[in-house]
């Protein structure tokens, strides 16, 4: 198996240029999908039987929640790759992904909270999903804080990698515990901030938004990554040529 392509990819100058070329291929489709998804969700989809038009919040809440978890998994996997195989680019991916994931978690919490008001009458409920999202936010913040506290970049990368691995192992445990805790004290009212049972009309915009958000993440990640690569490659000679272009 010829691994040259892989080594090329992990080489910073190559990656820097490749990332620059790939970004629009993620960015524009993302924009399109999000626009289409918004139209489908806000205009085309029929209102929900129980929740009326309020259910449309799902079109921003669910994709944000999905992204918050997907990005954390990405972060943990790249950090692990960086730690085990000592690939600097992998650490850069984790570092670049963290703030994006944290913001998506905030979006999921905010939209989930806002959605809760018309549904349950309060601005916050200790719903299993929301509580899990909140704990996920803490995990993100811990990761970002640890990285910020360590001056030596290599030590920061590796320490954060250990933290990310520990976090991702704990995530299912946290999820299960919070779920169990929630059902324990649940009254007769539904607490699941779940998607209402959806017809295809309602479902396709949701999938479109999720795909759009994922591609969006790709585009933003690549941009941030280019910044990371420059910062990490400070004195490399390729940088001079590249920036002179």
């Amino acid at each position, binding site marked *: 198996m010829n691994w040259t392509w892989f080594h090329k990819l992990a080489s910073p100058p190559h990656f820097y240029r490749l990332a620059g070329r790939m970004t629009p291929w993620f960015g524009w489709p993302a924009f399109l999908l999000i626009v289409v998804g918004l139209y489908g969700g806000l205009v085309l989809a029929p*209102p929900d039987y129980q929740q009326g*038009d309020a259910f449309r*919040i799902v079109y921003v809440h669910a994709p944000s929640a999905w992204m918050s978890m997907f990005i954390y998994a990405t972060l943990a996997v790249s950090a692990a790759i960086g730690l085990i195989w000592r690939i600097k680019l992998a650490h850069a991916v984790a570092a670049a992904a963290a703030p994006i994931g944290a913001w*998506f978690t905030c979006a999921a919490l*905010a939209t989930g909270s806002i959605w809760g008001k018309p549904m349950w009458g309060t601005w916050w409920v200790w719903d299993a999903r929301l509580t899990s999202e909140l704990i996920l936010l803490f995990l993100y913040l811990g990761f970002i804080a640890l990285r910020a506290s360590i001056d030596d970049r290599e030590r920061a990368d590796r320490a954060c990698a250990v933290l990310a691995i520990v976090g991702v192992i704990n995530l299912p445990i946290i999820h299960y515990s919070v779920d169990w805790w929630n059902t324990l004290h649940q009254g007769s009212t539904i607490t699941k901030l779940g998607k209402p049972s959806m017809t295809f009309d309602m479902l396709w915009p949701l999938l479109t938004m999720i795909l759009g958000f994922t591609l969006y993440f790709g585009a933003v990640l690549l941009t941030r990554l280019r*910044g*990371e690569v*420059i910062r990490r490659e*400070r004195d490399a000679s390729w940088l*001079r040529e590249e920036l002179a272009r």
Partner: protein
Amino acid sequence: MNLAQFLAMGGYAVYVWPSFGLTLILLIHNVRAARRYHASAREQAMRRIDSSRKQP
């Protein structure tokens, strides 16, 4: 369905529009923050290259 009905969102407008608005703001913010991050990295790198060139 006319524009007024659409904006009213069946009475839930005060929940729906801020949710979408907030998410949109965050999406835009992340793009701009990423671009700024990249741009400032380039700037710093250029400055360092220039200053090292000036040294004999």
